[in-house]
């Protein structure tokens, strides 16, 4: 028989509680509650997961793992769709509040107005940024948002092709292909100009950091195909909203707007679309309504699109999303405001161009795509990318990702000041000189 009182850390009961509850049920022990499990399915002993750690030992153990990630201590010029921005203290201080962190999907709007109003504010901001009227409460990340947008285009058009402009992030493209394969989606290049194109996908700035001519690219799409733009939202204080450049659907990775690097997640997929796509949108949407007394109130709406109602015919299977990340983004954008967002963009722009200027003065280093306008990130052609990345790490700088044998990305956010950029260039010069020598 098991001990009645818990030894596990988060169980509130005293031994007497367990005994009293069992007595009420007329059961001899906790084991008896599992009598409906066929005996041979029941494990007779605890699974071996090592000893349970008290909190101090746990903190030490996990702290050691965190400490072993030496890359986190490097000065970060890495990019590839994920950027080391400064995270204002207010974002964490507010988002960590228990009322946000430990609530769930606002199924009971009367006690979830905090969540719902944040979502409504978030949708408004996304709609503003993207220049499109209807935004959702968010999806898992930028790449899955793109996949959902393409599936939505497929459903809306009845067509099977998706045409990618060059420079779409290869991992995002791979996700679209994974999602699409099951629905018979065919990937094309933009210039294939097939008839059966459901969507044209453009990335802005593209994988190589280039600012592309969204309007021109979308203008080349076959009639009836939807224009889907994946955008770095942190550029949108400076660059035109894709919704005003002909996009029907815009998606983005929300990480650059106040979310930590966190080795890849949790991040956030942003999505907004044209009005007439409203009932095809995936995931949660919050609407404004009224309570019984006529007071403004917010509520999940248009749920007939969703899996819990529409089941196999839902617009998407999404249930748990990334609401807390949307909160962080909403707080971040509130702190920045329109002027802050523009300054953020301009600062990264200026510093990235300064960095590119310095780096391309190093012998053997040049821009991978000469002459293309770029924003805060650029692809650098170098003698040997992998080894350069390793040597730069040894010198205290994280660069990358490496995108082919001779190319790696360099991103410069508002967080990297001139001194660090100078340091980067000096270190790279030295590394390459030493390698050459």
């Amino acid at each position, binding site marked *: 028989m098991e001990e009645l009182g818990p030894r596990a*850390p988060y169980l509130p009961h005293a031994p007497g509680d367990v005994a009293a*509850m069992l007595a009420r049920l007329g059961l001899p022990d906790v084991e008896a509650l599992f009598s409906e499990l066929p005996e041979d399915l029941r494990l007779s002993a605890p699974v071996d997961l090592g000893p349970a750690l008290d909190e101090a030992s746990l903190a030490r153990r996990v702290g050691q793992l965190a400490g072993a990630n030496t*890359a*986190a201590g490097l000065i970060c010029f890495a990019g590839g769709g994920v950027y080391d921005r400064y995270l204002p203290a*207010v974002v964490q201080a507010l988002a960590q509040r228990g009322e946000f962190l430990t609530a769930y999907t606002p199924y009971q709007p009367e006690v979830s107005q905090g969540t719902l109003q944040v979502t409504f*504010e978030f949708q408004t901001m996304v709609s503003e940024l993207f220049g499109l009227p209807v935004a959702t409460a968010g999806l898992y990340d930028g790449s899955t948002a793109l996949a959902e947008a393409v599936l939505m285009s497929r459903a809306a058009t009845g067509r099977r092709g998706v045409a990618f402009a060059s420079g779409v992030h290869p991992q995002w493209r791979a996700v679209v292909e994974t999602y699409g394969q099951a629905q018979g989606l065919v990937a094309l290049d933009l210039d294939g100009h097939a008839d059966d194109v459901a969507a044209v996908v453009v990335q802005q700035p593209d994988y190589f950091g280039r600012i592309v001519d969204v309007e021109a690219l979308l203008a080349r799409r076959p009639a009836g195909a939807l224009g889907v733009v994946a955008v770095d939202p942190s550029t949108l204080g400076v660059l035109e909203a894709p919704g005003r450049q002909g996009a029907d659907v815009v998606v983005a990775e929300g990480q650059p707007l106040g979310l930590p690097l966190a080795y890849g997640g949790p991040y956030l997929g942003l999505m907004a679309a044209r009005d007439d796509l409203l009932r095809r949108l995936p995931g949660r949407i919050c609407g404004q309504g009224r309570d019984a007394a006529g007071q403004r109130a917010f509520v999940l709406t248009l749920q007939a699109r969703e899996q819990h109602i529409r089941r196999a015919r839902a617009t998407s299977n999404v249930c748990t*999303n990334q609401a807390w990340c949307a*909160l962080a983004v909403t707080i971040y954008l509130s702190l920045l405001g329109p002027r802050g967002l523009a300054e953020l963009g301009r600062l990264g722009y200026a*510093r990235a161009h300064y960095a590119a200027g310095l780096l391309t003065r190093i012998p053997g280093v040049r821009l991978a795509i000469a002459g293309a306008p770029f924003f805060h990130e650029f692809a650098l052609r170098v003698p040997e990318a992998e080894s350069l990345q390793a040597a730069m790490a040894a010198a205290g700088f994280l660069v990358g990702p490496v995108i082919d044998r001779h190319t790696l990305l360099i991103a410069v956010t508002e967080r990297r000041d001139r001194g660090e950029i100078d340091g980067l260039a000096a270190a790279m010069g030295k590394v390459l000189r030493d390698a050459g020598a």
Partner: protein
Amino acid sequence: MPVPDAPEPLIFERSRPGRRALRLPEIDVPEPSRPEDDLPSGWLRARPPALPEVGEPEVVRHFTRLSRRNFAVDTGMYPLGSCTMKYNPKINDTLAGLDGFAGLHPSAPDALAQGALALLWELEQDLCRLTGMDAFSLQPAAGAHGELVGMLIASAYHRARGDSARRRVVVPDAAHGTNPASAAMAGFEVVEVGTDARGGIDLEQVRAHADGRLAALMLTNPNTLGLFEGEVREVAQVVHQAGGLLYYDGANLNAIVGRARPADMGFDVCHLNLHKTFSTPHGMGGPGAGPVGVTRRLSPYLPGPLVRRRDVPAVAGPRYAWDDPGPESIGRVRALHGNFGVLVRAYAYIRANGGSGLREVSGHAVLAANYLAALLRPWLPASHDRICMHEVVTDGRALAPHGLRALDLCKALLDRGFHAPTMYFPLIVPEALMFEPTETEPREAIEALAAAVGEIVALAERDPEAVRQAPTQTPVGRVDEASAARRPVLRWYPSEGDRAPEG
């Protein structure tokens, strides 16, 4: 009653032109490049986005006040069935926020991210031990994402065997909506089977679909009625004999964690909801994590990249690295490594509990549900008269004679300081109210919840209108969902009536 919190305006309504919060560093580089010098003017933002212009003090106050309009596990009991709203340990948030994790760029070279990789590898091993599966992908962002991955794996598996006629996925009528939605998203035709009198999947109906078209059957166990599927091995046998795969929706693992393993029951592929069983906070709707586990024969199909461990005799201790999956993989299902911050929390939760702790978790979760079921019985009988597992689905028709619905009871619970149970799910139980107290509620909270239900039922007899008016003690009164959906207002506009400032 708390300090008066008036309705909070939208952050946009607090905006005044020219106000600002965060200041940015000055441009510090010589001869700074400016977008307007380099780019065609049509590429540049013509009108700034109407983000709010507010000071930092107002931002803090706004979101603090909004938070106070939420119910949460940290403020009270949240017996929302199927969602496992257990206590979320604060230490896990602290650990996920450590610089070595939160500040780690996903394209860090493996050699400089050994701690994160070791954590992921250990977590994968832990989940294998707990489920009996042979390999896990930690990438999926939530349960539904895991389901989609699982269905894509099923699809790839059959395709690899040239078995492409298998385009059908069977789900119970009691299944969670994500199951059919995920199967459909993966390109399958979805077939529903019924539930038998004991509340289990109808084995006869399963048999009827056990043919060459069957790709997979999706099952959660305990099922969405909170009941253990005692015939699960028979189901597995039928499915397997027909050439199909058995998928385990792990949303309800909290009932059996540390006590029984899906693989032993015959499941081939599963997802787990780390935000449920492994106690990562639900964050108002997410993020979660939905790792997918498979038995050996399905492991080639897992999405990548995957963490591999190498024991390097020369070095002290093992080395970890990301590895691309083989050619049979379904491909990528998200851009990067997964909801890593969530995975750190789940890892910490497992380490804090150990195997015996997790066994206690399920024991106490089931104890709590049965205790609650027993206390509720006078007013809300369980849908099936059996020992339930971690949750109990009750029949809310008790209120019907007074012209009230399950919803009314839920709203009245809000007034009494409880979150409501899950309403109207599963769909097969009339006026279903699904209660999941979880193992972290103290006994007196469970008793208080039952007492509150009793009180409401008594009130309904006396004064049904009072119940229909509920809630009245909440930040807003009962919200009219139908009218909100009829003419959707999905964003704020700078001026009333201005519906398209974007145009």
